[in-house]
């Protein structure tokens, strides 16, 4: 594929060299997710002027500092409402949202479940690193039980969210989980999510090596990337595994994909009806 053959072409096309180096720590997985998003957009052949990158706040939500898309940086947790406004006001735009796990599932949790329910054609990528990296590694809604965090010095006593199952229960019509170790799969999952007509959520597992990794003694960046082989399992393999074998593993792949009327299409029907041109 052309996009793989020419990395510098992609970097020039999608990223501002003037804003480099990124603020991400060496070994962080976030750059892989950001590049996967750009590769997905390249494969889809989207007009870059029509891609709107909306972000919350946190280590994930700085990807838009570097990408050459029109972008809106909202407040912490507030990316989805503004993304909803953008898409509803101009449904021709491709709206892609970058959020962290705390951004999406804690402070923005209410917006998340309602975006799922509403089924507006927005693609949300959650950079899930199991903690609040930017603010020093506080415990978050996806921090595993017992893990250490700056605000869980004795270990996390709260059960974590499975963001994908939350999105599914809230009615999301496309839910997928990827991991940066499986980058080719992650690109495909994002590509399929953007192509999906309706709300798409991609939970992208990305290691926080400096804060979460160090505090929990998870080893080098390389070891943390490789650990995703152990911590996750593909949908295909999971089908033949027992619940005991699946215990503690996160399933990768497309978890939900269904066709349901999309919100902006439905609203266009309301306009037609209000203007007396209804069905």
């Amino acid at each position, binding site marked *: 594929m052309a996009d793989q053959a020419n990395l510098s072409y992609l970097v020039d096309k999608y990223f501002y060299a003037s804003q480099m180096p990124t603020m991400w720590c060496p070994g962080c997985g976030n750059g892989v997710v950001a590049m996967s998003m750009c590769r997905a957009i390249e494969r889809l052949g989207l007009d870059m*002027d029509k891609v709107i990158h909306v972000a919350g706040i946190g280590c994930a939500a700085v990807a838009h500092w570097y990408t050459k898309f029109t972008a809106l940086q909202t407040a912490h947790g507030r990316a989805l409402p503004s993304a*909803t*406004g953008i898409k509803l*006001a101009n449904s021709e735009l491709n709206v892609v949202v970058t959020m962290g796990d705390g951004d999406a599932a804690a402070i923005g949790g209410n917006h998340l479940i309602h975006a799922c329910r509403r089924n507006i054609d927005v693609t949300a990528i959650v950079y899930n690193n199991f903690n609040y990296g930017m603010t020093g590694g506080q415990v978050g809604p996806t921090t595993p039980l017992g893990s250490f965090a700056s605000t869980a010095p004795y270990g996390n006593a709260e059960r974590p969210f499975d963001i994908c199952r939350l999105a599914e229960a809230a009615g999301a019509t496309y839910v997928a989980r990827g991991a940066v170790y499986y980058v080719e799969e992650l690109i495909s999952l994002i590509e399929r999510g953007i192509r999906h007509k309706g709300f798409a959520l991609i939970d992208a597992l990305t290691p926080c090596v400096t804060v979460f990794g160090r505090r929990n003694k998870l080893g080098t960046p390389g070891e943390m990337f490789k650990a995703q082989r152990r911590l996750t399992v593909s949908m295909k393999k999971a089908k033949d595994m027992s619940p005991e074998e699946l215990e503690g593993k996160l399933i990768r792949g497309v978890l939900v994909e269904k066709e349901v009327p999309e919100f902006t299409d439905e609203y266009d029907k309301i306009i037609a009806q209000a203007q007396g041109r209804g069905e």
Partner: protein
Amino acid sequence: MSKARITLMKGNEACAEGAIAAGVRFFAGYPITPSNEIATIMAQRLPQVGGKFIQMEDEIGSLGAAIGAALTGVKAMDATSGPGFSLKMENLGLAAMVEVPLVLINVQRVGPSIGMATSPAQGDVMQARYGSHGDYGIIVVSPSSVQEMFDLTIKAVDFSEKYRVPVILLADQVVGHMRERVVVPPYEEIETTYRTEPSVSPEAYLPYRGDERGVSPMAKFGSPYRWYANSSSHGEDSFQATSDYAISEKLIQRLTNKIEKNKKEITEVREEFLDDAEIVIVAYGCTARSARGAVLKAREEGIKAGFFRPIVLWPMPNEEIGQVADTARAIIVPEMNMGQYVHPVREAVSGRAEVFSLPKVGGVAFSSNEILEKIREIVKNG
């Protein structure tokens, strides 16, 4: 030329119609009393004119959605009251920082907290100006009649577009819920304003370089002008500048000064009986109605009373109030709070006249007699 329509309307209804007349084509809201009618009417009216309405999951989300819509080039609005207004403060600051034109209606009710949902107050006057963290400029307009709920909504939209700033229409439950005669001009004859769009090439576009007024041209999201609406401290090119103190200083000054330095064009006041006035009532919103009545009654009694109403509350009309203080000996500020706007009035007066606060809380609007009583008291005490 088509004829103006004369009709009986509720304040909130006039506000919604004013928005349609001003070209607002996006509304996001969340249910709250006493502003509900605005959302109800917008849900009905917007699709009729090809616009979009959405009821969001919460108050924070609805202002967020309006921000997003406004960035695509649409005139957008949100309406709320009381606790909802408090929840808006995060995104209001964001709109000010990112410089998104939009109108936020606040039909004030009694606070603090849940307070009294169906009773009027004017307790959000300071919050409207200073409610979000940090420094920024903002415009707040204050309607006193149903006609003004129509006219000033149009004006609020125009201000927001002209200065690329969120504008608050600070109404109250009295003005929002009462019914009055309204003259509605044919919409096609209403002159409206739309933001300036960039005329340079996309490569040369600097989304945060202010013109001589401090206002930057604004490109639509989805246009070839790719830009970054940035809620962090940013330079003229919109890129992150979170460790550059000089850039941050310049940005905050511009955000504030694009309103404060253009005060002359924004300020609007109503002045009556000021020529020989010794005692002047400064009042706004529903209280201005009772205040004007009190002035008329005082005049009948031979008291040289005057009436001053800031229609635009913020930016503060310091100069105009200062002129009043040059001739009057006493200024009374009746307001439905524990005394808020009286503070900037006192600052504007700067010792040139005595300033009396006349606070009233609890949810009952002023009668003209209550204000008249205060006028008499000042006369009596010499």
